[in-house]
């Protein structure tokens, strides 16, 4: 059976195709049209695995863009999909921290990968990828450069939670001659603190996995580990766990 899972996020759209054991995956920027992004994902996946559209049994779609995408056989929330994806990769995980472009989530999962509880920060950019993106711009960097540019030894604490105020704060900090690497470490700390508060509210249950685009950034992982006092697993394909989960649920027809 051939199935596709698509996760249309606010920043990136991810796709996963499963066909008789072998997988392909792809990622593109979502751009302004989640519908078009979903179509491009399908085309790329079919191309890469040399499969025709009508050979695909089911397409499950998740992520914020799922509602706009009409070709979906089913739409599922990213919460359930991340849980399913992680359960496949790391069956011992009980807590998932997912930080994406526009929200962050903490998901508590059970032994079978089922969602037991979840919390979301969804009304404010603080503690999301968007926060880091705005700060990277203020620092004259690309968001992908932040992770390796930090110098935790020179940590400059950022006290503002608000994205707008934090941006002014780092501009002020730069003006005072503070090192960029220390400011970046402070930004990671800020995201870590914000998200860790949400994790503690739910209770830390090991093992802990970290997914979403922000998980690529080793500085945020470091900050979260320090805040929570626990080791955190970042899957190699940390951006794809939602799409993988959607594909697996499609495979299982759930």
């Amino acid at each position: 059976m051939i199935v596709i899972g698509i996760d249309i996020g606010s920043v990136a759209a991810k796709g996963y195709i499963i066909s008789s054991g072998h997988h392909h995956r792809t990622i593109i920027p979502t751009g302004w049209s989640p519908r078009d992004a979903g179509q491009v994902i399908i085309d790329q996946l079919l191309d890469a695995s040399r499969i025709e559209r009508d050979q695909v049994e089911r397409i499950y779609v998740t992520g914020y863009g799922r509602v706009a995408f009409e070709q979906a056989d089913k739409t599922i929330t990213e919460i359930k999909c991340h849980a399913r994806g992680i359960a496949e990769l790391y069956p011992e995980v009980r807590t998932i921290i997912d930080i994406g472009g526009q929200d962050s989530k903490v998901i508590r999962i059970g032994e079978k990968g089922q969602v037991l509880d979840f919390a979301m920060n969804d009304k404010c950019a603080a503690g999301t990828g968007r926060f880091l993106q705005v700060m990277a711009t203020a620092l004259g960097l690309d968001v992908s450069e932040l992770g390796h540019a930090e110098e935790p030894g020179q940590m400059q604490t950022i006290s503002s939670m608000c994205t707008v105020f934090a941006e002014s704060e780092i501009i002020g900090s730069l003006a005072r001659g503070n090192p960029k690497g220390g400011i970046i470490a402070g930004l990671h700390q800020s995201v870590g603190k914000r998200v860790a508060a949400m994790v503690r509210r739910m209770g830390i249950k090991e093992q802990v996995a970290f997914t979403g685009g922000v998980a690529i950034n080793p500085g945020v992982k470091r900050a979260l580990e320090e805040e929570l006092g626990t080791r955190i697993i970042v899957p190699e394909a940390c951006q794809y766990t939602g799409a993988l989960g959607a594909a697996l649920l499609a495979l299982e027809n759930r």
Partner: protein
Amino acid sequence: MADYQQMWADLEMDLEKHDALCEVLPEAFGGIYLTQQDRPKGMDFYDFVVSEIHGVRPAEMLEHQKKGGKVFGTFCVYVPDEVVFAAGGIAAGLCGGSQFWVSGGEKVLPANTCPLIKASVGARLDKTCPFFLIPDMYVAENTCDGKKKAWEILAREVPMHIIDLPQMKRERDIAAFEAEIRDFIVTVEKVTGNKITAESLGKAIKLINNKRRALQRVYNARKASPVPISGKDALLVTQINFYDDPARAAQMANSLADELEQRIENKFGVFPDNAVRIMVSGTPMAIPNWKLHHIIESLGAAVVVEESCTGTRYFENLVDESASTLEEQIRAMAERYMKTNCACFTPNSARVEDIIRLSDEYKVDGIIDTNLQFCNLYSTESYLVKQSVTERNMPIMHIETDYSDQDFEQLRTRVEAFLEILRK
């Protein structure tokens, strides 16, 4: 719709702004309500009231004033309407439930005030709601700090009577509320010029109790599976009963309940048998706030009960009708009102017990505990609610939101994920 332009102009409303409000409401109502399948016939009345929302009932109130009667605008389920009706007055709930009024309130209130208070103050100051302009007096209470101070601002606009609601439930607090009812009687007698007697109060107690009984009947029907009425429709019934004539409110709710009971007999529902059954608990949803119910029911789950001031807190518990002297009646009213469990009380463990009892009675699969943004009381209490409910293995989710649509998609994702948990 009948032409109420002259009436609105006479009330010195801001007609231009009001037209803008009148334009958006029918569309919102059409999309949220009229698209529902198999609605009970009994909802026609409520649809009609919404279609003439700023016309038909305000016109009745003005007619009442023309004949020398008085109108009291109220903001809380702790205001004893019985007193007003016993003196030949009309009491009408005023709470604002639309984002439209929020900016008006923000002109004078701090940004971190709840949308209900902002909308209520804005509706008055912007002169875009006839209900807020008609009353001879507002009757309000000190159930939270935001309201308490907002009334001081509104007092510059309209005469105010403030009820000092006790914040604990000891015997001396019930006695204190009795004294508040006595003070309220004095005020109402002065404003209306009518003396309240044991006879008139006894009649008013029956009048309001009958409305409560009728609403309880509608809610009892929601205990059935398949559920014969949507949560959105039931919410609308309660919302309109806040300001409708109580005798008519009871009559309409009773005839709706007749129809729902018939539906139960025929096993006819508006959701399938296996639909997820949700309780919404928390802060009130004043008309036209249908946001959360709409999100939940659009995702295929049924809201079967509201533990809120626009739900069970509004009508549960009756005033003892056997009381025959004024003294006894006032005591009976104090006892009844002090049974209502609002987060402004401490401790408020009886509310948690209510939630657990209701979740059994209405056979709910999960609870969505919600509060309006910046409602510190319900937001803090949500922690305790979650603890107690979780101990009983009942799934619960907390949502804080306002009247705006900005978080609609995020809320939909959260509710959908919660339903995915329940559907397993």
